[in-house]
């Protein structure tokens, strides 16, 4: 997996372009994991009457 985007300048040297946008779904997934994890925790805690 690429973490950054690179291009090449007129002399063939690598130029850093920015962060890889392939990471965007991972950012969404990380948020979803925290939300679902907490929602499950609330459900379990609620069932046990905490």
């Amino acid at each position, binding site marked *: 997996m690429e973490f950054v985007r690179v291009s090449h300048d007129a002399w063939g040297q690598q130029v850093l372009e920015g962060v890889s946008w392939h990471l965007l779904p991972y950012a969404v997934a990380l948020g979803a994991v*925290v939300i679902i994890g907490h929602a499950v925790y609330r459900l379990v805690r609620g069932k046990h009457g905490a």
Partner: protein
Amino acid sequence: MAASVEITGAEASERIERHKGIDRLFHWTTAVAVLTLMGTGLLPVVGVKFEWIKIHWIAGVVLAALVLFHLVRAVFWQSLRAVWISARDVGARRGGKYSIAQKLMHHAMALMVLGAVGTGVVMLAKVDTPFWKRNPYLLSADTWGTLYVIHGLAALSAVTLVMIHVYFGLIPENRMYLRAMIRGWITRQELVTRHDPERWPGKKNP
């Protein structure tokens, strides 16, 4: 969440000021600016093409001004201690004005916004505005690349943080904080249930 301290009568429903009007205005204008920046910055990435640069840099300047306002207000008019994470926060059932989770969210958001604004302000040199002409040669290509990476990382973390922030703002047990961010107050009962009155006694809502 069960109340550990029950108070009765009119005192329980007494309104305690949590956020002043100016701070609520700051919060919601910041929210609009951040969502505008995320929309204009990330929608083109997922294939929604439109003229985004002008809206993006204007929203960025607005966010930079809001950050500056908040920094000055936090240092000179508010208590920095309220958001400072101390040993007393770790494992405490009731926090001061802000819980450790709220402090961590604030610091993560602050880091993200400062990363985005700090790099974004420099990146303004690459756009034509009514106030200046673009100068892409201000920095070396490597330096621009590094700034773009930091700006992009801030954008990606904004996605995760906004999702988490909105979720925790909407769940029923935190509904009082959403009300406080809209109307400014929580009740005395809510204060003693979720906060340590020794650390945050609260003042009556004016």
